[in-house]
């Protein structure tokens, strides 16, 4: 199988290939040489399972994530759908701001983002690494009315946000249970990532929160309270001695 390098992080390497004709992304976790072999295998296996479970759980709750094609525990690899055409939310926001296209696209985007995180938290999925690089914008699923028109990533920038949908990716740091504080931290990470990468987007985050509250009706109040506490402290966890 021909694989081409895509990206590399501290935990894993990403490569592109085709899986029986379908565009595919292979996420292969490294063996960490500093770790004891037994610990390394155990940890890596656990994390792959967590990642896969989170993606499945998102799916069953209507949150878009890449389709999983194969899980290979021998090589610590996950083969998944390479979502295309798509661009990262980061690229989208940068483009909107550069072209001074106004707030509408960003607020509509915020609505969607708040929706998926709200749903995720409601189902006890804590992403763990919410940044604008870990969210993709892709052609919206239209069921049977799916058009066969295939467009390029550049086309996406021209599209109306109503025709696009947010796809959540990279569940490498995910947790499948957590306290309101963990969820508050999840949102805080997003806020910091958003504000540090894209200037003047405070109102966008506020819009995300509004949408989040609507989509996590029971839990949102407590989570937002924790978020406020975390913001005030300017750091992520309750201080300990």
């Amino acid at each position, binding site marked *: 199988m021909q694989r081409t390098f895509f990206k590399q992080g501290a935990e894993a390497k990403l490569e592109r290939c085709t899986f029986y004709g379908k565009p595919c992304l292979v996420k292969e976790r490294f063996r960490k040489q500093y770790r004891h072999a037994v610990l390394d295998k155990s940890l890596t296996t656990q994390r792959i399972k967590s990642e896969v479970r989170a993606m499945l759980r998102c799916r069953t709750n209507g949150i878009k994530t890449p389709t999983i094609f194969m899980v290979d525990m021998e090589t610590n690899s996950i083969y998944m759908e390479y979502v295309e055409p798509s661009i990262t939310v980061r690229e989208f926001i940068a483009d909107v701001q550069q072209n001074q296209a106004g707030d509408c696209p960003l607020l509509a985007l915020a609505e969607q983002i708040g929706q998926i995180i709200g749903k995720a938290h409601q189902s006890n999925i804590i992403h763990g690494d919410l940044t604008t690089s870990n969210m993709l914008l892709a052609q919206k699923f239209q069921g049977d009315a799916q058009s066969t028109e295939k467009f390029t990533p550049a086309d996406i920038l021209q599209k109306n946000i109503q025709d696009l949908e947010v796809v959540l990716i990279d569940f490498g740091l995910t947790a499948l249970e957590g306290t309101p504080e963990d969820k508050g931290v999840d949102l805080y*990470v997003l806020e910091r990532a958003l504000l540090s990468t894209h200037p003047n987007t405070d109102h966008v985050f506020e819009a995300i929160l509004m949408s989040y509250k609507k989509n996590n009706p029971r839990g949102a109040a407590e989570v937002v309270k924790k978020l406020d506490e975390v913001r005030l402290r300017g750091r992520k*966890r309750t201080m*300990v001695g």
Partner: protein
Amino acid sequence: MVIAIGFEGSANKLGIGIIKDGVVLSNPRHTYITPPGQGFLPKDTARHHREHALSVLQQALDEAKIKPQDIDVICYTKGPGMGAPLVSTALVARTVAQLWKKPIVAVNHCIGHIEMGRLITGSKNPTVLYVSGGNTQVIAYSERCYRIFGETIDIAVGNCLDRFARVLKLSNDPSPGYNIEQLAKQGQKYLELPYVVKGMDVSFSGLLSFIEEKAPELIEKGEYTPADMCFSLQETVFAMLIEITERAMAHCGSQEVLIVGGVGCNKRLQEMMGVMAEERGATLFATDERFCIDNGAMIAQAGWEMFRSGITTEMKDTTCTQRFRTDEVEVTWRK
């Protein structure tokens, strides 16, 4: 030319050190060691510090071959740490400052470690892993602040190791951590222990409870030796620390890593960190027990930096505090 004297006593080590423009002139230290199986209590520790303060101070001056009038600034540990020991050490600093009519500077203990680490190793802008009996933090400098990227959400790694040493009734001389390290070298059988990393943070209390409960029975049954347990404990907690350090480095794009704090003496930790650093093409910086372990010179060094950038502490503000976060300090001496 600025000569600074530093007074450190936030835990069971009483250290008084003298630095002249980045050169350590003297750095004597006296450690309060309790019998095996026992930890150290604030009251007794404070008493130990009071008993030894003057002799250590004299030693510092003698070894540095300087007189009180040569000193430019008195530096002391404001916190964080144990209340009574901090206060009894601060008292000595305050007294000599008034006696010798010198300015005084209140120093954050963690920053003392960082500044000493930077001085001794020459590292420019490293990601810092600060690990001791009382602290576990991953720190990186950014815009006049030592930002805490990751930390323990419950107990410090040194505390975890020390408490396990008590379970095994290892000697506290020279330190429980040192004895765990030596015993671990003989360990071979690996026991899987709870590994808890949440994003950039770590948690050791679950692991400690687990091992405190399981170790005695496993050792008695003959399934694992104490050496195996020490080995397994180190491999696990150190791997956790390295993981969060690596994440911080990846986030900051850092090519340098510095380990400071008492647990930083541990050769196995240094070895493992070295492997990670090499894989990333980064450089590892570490110091030896003179500077890893709490000492007076590190307080002098941090205080020297602060003093040179124009900071002094008014006598009425020379208090101590048990909780004093690294990121609360404005790092005026760096850009």
